[in-house]
């Protein structure tokens, strides 16, 4: 196979070829690195490429395989992670100037587990600064472009994680999802992205944005790829007290079980309003496909969804205002030069280090927590959370999964919404409730609108990622593999 053909494989197919001895990890890794070198100048998915380390890891994997000690489907597979995951000895920036030059002394749990499974880390992926954004335009380093149309955003905040897969630069990625940051870019880039149940994957070693909402998760070009990655990273972790004690399920074994008998809840509130007609059409077609496959549709209501965005921006910014306090110029990262005194050290380091969006959110969150506002704002927002969760609990007595759009529109143009933060915040209108309710949510491609990918969102019961993946796989099998984006090839 040519290098180009190799990088077009799914993780599953690449893994099968490794197992069959038809390709080596070094060949896969070299092919990916070449693809990154050829395309990333236009995509901007990578902030750091760790070529030498990747080749050394690939050789180690090939040696394991040669001696019969290959460890599973990820052994030898080139992957990359959002630059929010700490990687020992490899720069980790969170997409922010304030962490420029920061070299972590430890690996986060998810990264450590990927590496223990034999995966080859190619590098660190672009994102909105501290995961704050829906378009990757808030990266302090460079914008990321959608491989389907380079003038458009890949979505955010895990933009690099979705774009790298769409651009065939690697076989699997990790992202994080606080309000939709895995599902939105997956939808915009035509790949599969899963936000697990809060507590399914350890947050240890993932830079915190909003601690009670953040959840790391996998992205892949297929559901099988995502299921394999989730199997590797999910499960209890003593380093994260909010990580569930419940062991991870076997996400691959039930993948082909189909959609027959599945009860799909369709929330009234997620259709209409700002939903673009062509996006709605793809979503409704997907629902019809499920019916054809033997699933039943149940109309449900999530009446408190409409308070979701308001509650989200209070809770997320409040937690962020505390989480970002440690970036103070004292111990690591950027320290403003030439300052006099402590106050100036803090003020100048943070002024120079943080971009506009983190500053905006730190200020919002600081107000939300201030005396006099806390009761009215933060506590109210927590109550909304409970109400939203109850909506879902009620719905799940009548259905097994909830289905709807991921976003109101397909990928928008770079620069289109940067002037209007409120418009940008609407990108998360359908995804945010899932974080507030701590539920698993997934985006699976369901066709194109105006030549751009559209994702179907599936939301499941707590810790029922297996059902989500099985349902997504049924649709994927029916629709066939999504076409590869052509924007890169046309200009290559």
């Amino acid at each position, binding site marked *: 196979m040519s290098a180009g053909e190799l990088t077009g494989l799914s993780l599953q197919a690449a893994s099968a070829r490794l197992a069959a001895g038809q390709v080596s990890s070094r060949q896969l890794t070299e092919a990916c690195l070449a693809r990154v070198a050829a395309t990333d100048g236009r995509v901007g998915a990578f902030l750091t490429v760790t070529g030498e380390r990747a080749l050394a890891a690939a050789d180690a994997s090939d040696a394991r395989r040669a001696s019969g000690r290959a460890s599973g489907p990820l052994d030898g597979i080139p992957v990359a992670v959002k630059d929010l995951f700490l990687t020992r000895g490899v720069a980790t920036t969170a997409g922010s100037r304030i962490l420029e030059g920061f070299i972590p002394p430890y690996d986060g749990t998810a990264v450590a587990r990927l590496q223990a499974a034999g995966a080859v880390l190619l590098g660190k992926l672009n994102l909105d600064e501290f995961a704050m954004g829906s378009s990757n335009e808030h990266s302090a380093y460079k914008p990321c472009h959608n491989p389907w149309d380079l003038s458009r955003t890949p979505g955010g905040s895990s933009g690099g994680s979705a774009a790298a897969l769409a651009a065939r630069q690697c076989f699997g990625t990790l992202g994080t999802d606080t309000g939709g940051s895995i599902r939105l870019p997956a939808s915009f880039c035509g790949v599969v992205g899963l936000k697990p149940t809060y507590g399914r994957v350890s947050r*240890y070693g993932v830079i915190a944005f909003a601690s009670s909402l953040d959840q790391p998760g996998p992205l892949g070009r297929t559901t099988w790829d995502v299921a394999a990655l989730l199997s590797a990273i999910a499960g209890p972790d*003593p380093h*994260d*007290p909010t990580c569930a004690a419940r062991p991870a399920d076997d996400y691959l074994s039930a993948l082909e079980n189909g959609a027959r008998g599945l009860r799909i809840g369709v929330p009234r509130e997620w259709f209409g309003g700002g939903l673009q007609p062509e996006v709605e059409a793809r979503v409704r077609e997907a629902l019809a496909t499920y019916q054809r496959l033997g699933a039943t549709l149940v109309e449900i209501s999530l009446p408190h969804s409409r308070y979701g965005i308001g509650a989200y921006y209070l809770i997320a910014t409040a*937690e962020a205002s*505390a989480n970002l*306090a*440690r970036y103070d110029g*004292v111990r690591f990262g950027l320290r403003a030069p030439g300052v006099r005194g402590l106050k100036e050290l803090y003020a100048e380091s943070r002024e120079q280090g943080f971009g506009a969006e983190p500053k905006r959110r730190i200020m919002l969150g600081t107000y939300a*927590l201030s005396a006099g506002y806390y009761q009215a704002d933060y506590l109210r927002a927590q109550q909304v959370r409970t109400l939203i969760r109850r909506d879902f609990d009620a719905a799940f007595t009548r259905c097994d999964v909830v289905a709807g759009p991921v976003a109101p529109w397909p990928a928008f143009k770079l620069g289109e919404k940067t002037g209007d933060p409120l418009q940008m915040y609407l990108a998360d209108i359908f995804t945010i409730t899932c974080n507030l309710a701590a539920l698993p949510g997934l985006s699976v491609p369901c066709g194109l609108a105006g030549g751009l990918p559209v994702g179907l969102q599936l939301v499941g019961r707590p810790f029922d990622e297996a059902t989500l993946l099985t349902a997504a796989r049924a649709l994927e099998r029916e629709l066939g593999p999504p076409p590869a984006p052509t924007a890169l090839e046309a200009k290559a």
Partner: protein
Amino acid sequence: MPVADFEVVLGLEVHAQLLTRTKIFCGCSTAFGAEPNSQVCPICLGMPGVLPALNAQVVEWAVKTGLALGCAVQPVSVFSRKNYFYPDLPKGYQISQFELPICLGGGLTITVDGQEKLIRLTRIHMEEDAGKNLHELAADGGSGVDLNRAGVPLLEIVSEPDLRSADEAVEYLKALRAILLALGVNDGNLEEGSFRCDANVSVMRRGATEYGTRAEIKNMNSFRFLKQAVDFEVRRQVALVEAGEPVVQETRLYDPVRGETRSMRSKEEAHDYRYFPEPDLPPVRVDEALLARVRASLPELPRARAARYQQVLGLPAQDAGVLVGDGALADFFDAALAARGGGAEAARKVANWTIGELSRLMNETGLPPPAWKLTPAGLAEVLALLDAGTVSGAGAKALVEELFRAGGDPGALVKSRGLAQVSDQGAIEAAVDAVLAASPADLERHRSGKKDLTGFFVGQVMKALKGQGNPGVVNALLKKKLGGLPPGEGR
């Protein structure tokens, strides 16, 4: 004296470092005095991406302390973030408890001027200590931060404003310290700051019903400084009120050199700490099983112990107080008495030796109890040797000292150090005869009744016996030999 026209209203906030082996949210050592920043890890350094993992022993000891102080231990309590910027606070927030602390209510009884008084507690909560700023490091003109202490577990124990004088505050702090020592959860070291207190002080005219404006006093690292600081602050506030000036709500720092308090920050400058529940830690749950287990592990507490010493063993209140003021001394006393056996008489002797000799050696050497080589059984054996006349009082003291520093077998030491007392009649009589024969002039002066020289002769005989003569035998023999003329009778 105008101060007498005022009533002092006083509450203490005590911060007690827990003696857990590791920090509250990570596995780093809590040992004091290590090289700066040698006991740190990504978690207590507040690195990006880290999460706290609660040390279960901290919860257990908070429960233990709460039970010992009669608090209502809460089945569910919640950690919160207290937000403020300071270089010794790596995360930019302290993980503490705010709205839902682990213990509510409770109290402890103090005795002042023979009067018992209950001081109520408001709450006890768990939190992490901060690091230390080191301004003297200044190699490059800058300041340093030592984060060894960051993340050391603290209990904050807050009293109600039930204290009415500096003396009561000191008694309260001593009683609380003794309880924490007895529980084994804190080392009670005010000087090193592992047991420290802030005082909320206000004054009001006698008979008034509304408390005055309070000032919070910090930096009092001894009982003496607490008393001085409170006394100063009371005088200052009374003077303000007398002059018709307002007392400002503020935080004041005690300066032990000048013996005064100074304004540190006013209420206007006070932080809005923006507390909110710590999302990284689930609520702390204390179930019945844990409560039962901790309750069963509670030791006898100082007040109960002191009462037992007085009522059952007949010790004077003063001695009982000294023993229970330091749990290690009381434990030693109990064990030594058990080894020695006997009733009130034995108890008094063991107490005297524990308070006199052991506590002297402890203070002189500064050695903590685990480093004492003297065992309770060792002291019991020394006292047995003393009672049997095998060693003299001086010999026993020498033995105790040697055992404390180096250990060993008391019986063997008596031999090897030549500490055995001479009780043999013949040997002592020979010595007496020799002394009398060597001093005919003194003997004559004594016998003539001009001067009572009994003491002088005892000294001479003891000297001849190298200090090891049994004083009883020496006295009896001398008395006989000095003739039927008891000294002083000629007067």
